[in-house]
């Protein structure tokens, strides 16, 4: 079962209060494990979630223990969620597959859960149940990553601009980015390029404003009259002036391209009305994107992302069903089947021992072995059909048949 808070259920203040420092996780998970009714525990604590995955013999006692953990840290019931059984499995799978993240598809969460798991394991707090759950969750997450495009796709205009620039120039280190005008959005796009190592140049009609911006962002300032020269030396141009006409005409860019000797030029026009003559985009080695183009790419990223998200949810559902069925088979019918076989074997063994001591005393060692093998084969054969039926009952959750079997085979009253 899982009890926890995340970015949707709890305020950031509460999450801050609950946060467990990475070096304190081991101690905290030991603390949870020591609570009444908890047999196994894993504590996942990131900036967006604090969750206790716990297993025990009685769900209610485990739940009370986990609630006590959160209550001791000041979380009230309303901000906490709680899942049991199949829902808890689904939750664990969705968290690992990054479907429950603030930014769906972000890759860190899987690593964080893995880390939490290995800390809990090292602390001796993980047993068979959570170990199976977590390994299956990691497998499901891997499937989601490889089979869906959930981890790719674009997020913002600025990141699309940076992605395009990298697709044209590769490494942006040492490339020069020219911002024409002083629009906020242009600066945002330019900044994301600068983060990738590009150098910034600012040209503005008001030189004072260009200087101020250049100083603020760590670039060089240029008067508007330098434009021709700048076009020859910069590789990316982000345009956002308040001008009504074209600031970059086709002729201007064409002559710049001649001087650039064919080196690619990436122009981003983020203004409405446009500042760059659309025909500039027809020139060889010039890549012109306006705001619509960029937003289109962002939107496509979003669309493929929501499709990918659906596919990911489907994979998770499939894996959850598979896991729950396997668990039921193991846990549901497993103990009953084992007890029945144990009972038959014990009875056969007792009879054999008695016979070997009395009437079959004369048998030699290898003859005794043969008789034992025959009895073992007989037991297996007799129990084959009941075993299969019970396994099926376990996986389909047919508790009535399980308890009937316990009565018939004399397990219910704990007989001899």
């Amino acid at each position, binding site marked *: 079962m899982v009890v926890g808070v995340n970015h949707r259920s709890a305020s950031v203040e509460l999450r801050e209060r609950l946060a467990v420092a990475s070096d304190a996780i081991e101690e905290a998970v030991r603390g949870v494990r020591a609570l009444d009714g908890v047999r196994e525990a894993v504590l996942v604590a990131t900036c967006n979630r604090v969750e206790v995955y716990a297993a025990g013999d009685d769900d209610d006692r485990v739940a009370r223990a986990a609630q006590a953990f959160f209550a001791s840290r000041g979380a009230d019931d309303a901000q906490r969620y709680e899942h049991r059984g199949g829902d808890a499995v689904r939750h664990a799978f969705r968290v690992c597959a990054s479907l429950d993240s603030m930014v769906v598809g972000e890759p860190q969460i899987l690593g964080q859960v893995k880390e939490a798991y290995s800390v809990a394991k090292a602390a001796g707090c993980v047993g068979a149940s959570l170990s199976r759950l977590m390994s299956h969750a990691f497998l499901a997450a891997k499937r989601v990553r490889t089979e869906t495009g959930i981890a790719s796709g674009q997020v913002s205009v600025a990141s699309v601009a940076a992605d395009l620039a990298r697709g044209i120039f590769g490494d942006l280190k040492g490339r020069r980015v020219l911002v024409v005008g002083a629009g906020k959005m242009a600066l945002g796009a330019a900044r994301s390029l600068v983060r990738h190592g590009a150098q910034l140049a600012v040209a503005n009609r008001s030189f004072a404003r260009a200087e101020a911006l250049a100083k603020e962002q760590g670039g060089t300032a240029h008067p508007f009259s330098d434009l021709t020269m700048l076009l020859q030396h910069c590789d990316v141009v982000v345009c956002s002036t308040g001008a009504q006409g074209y600031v970059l005409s086709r002729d201007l860019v064409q002559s710049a391209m001649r001087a650039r000797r064919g080196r*690619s030029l990436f122009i981003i026009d983020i203004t409405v009305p446009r500042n760059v003559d659309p025909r500039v985009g027809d020139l060889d080695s010039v890549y012109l994107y306006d705001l619509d183009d960029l937003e289109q790419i962002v939107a496509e990223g979003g669309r493929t992302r929501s499709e990918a998200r659906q596919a990911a949810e489907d994979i998770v559902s499939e894996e959850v069903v598979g896991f729950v069925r396997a668990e039921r088979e193991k846990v549901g019918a497993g103990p009953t089947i084992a007890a029945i076989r144990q009972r038959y074997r014990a009875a056969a063994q007792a009879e054999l021992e008695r016979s070997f001591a009395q009437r079959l005393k004369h048998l030699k060692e290898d003859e005794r072995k043969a008789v034992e093998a025959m009895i073992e084969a007989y037991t297996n054969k007799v129990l084959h059909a009941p075993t299969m039926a019970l396994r099926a009952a376990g996986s389909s959750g047919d508790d009535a048949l399980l308890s009937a079997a316990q009565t018939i085979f004399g397990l219910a009253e704990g007989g001899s």
Partner: protein
Amino acid sequence: MVGASSPCTGARRTGGVGAFVAPLALLALLASRAASDREGAPGGALLAMHVGSVLVATAAFTVAAAMAAAYLLQERELKQKRLGGIFRRLPSLEVMDTYSFRCVALGLPALTLGIVAGLFVSARAATGATGAWQQYVALGVWAVFAAVLVLRVVAGWRGRRGAIGTLLGYACALTVLAGYFLRGVV
């Protein structure tokens, strides 16, 4: 050929180019097998030099052509403003342009040597007119690749134009090779 491509594409984000180089390498392997079946003609150092140089040139041009084709694909994606799977898998335009250029620059001297050695071989063998048209096309190949290099340096014909030129040169080179092998078969 794959060996020629690996040091050239050591840079990051060049994985997708392998998709172009690998099938070409396979073709070359098959071709070289076919060629070795026909061995036994009178040889000598000049012939070895001719064959060796032409092989090096072919390998370099193959990688250059693969890069050029990938460049054109990537360029089309960027011009059409689609960032599909191709865009994500291929290296950047600049990287492909640079490595295509380097491969042509490596292949051209090798081809020059190969052609000169070939002229000596055919003069010595004095076998008459057989293969004459291949010699002219081979000179054409040389001219095209030389033009790709010269125009790039002198007139800044990079990118698209360079890529088209490289593919054109490679198509001619394939014609020569095809003629050579067909002549052996027919």
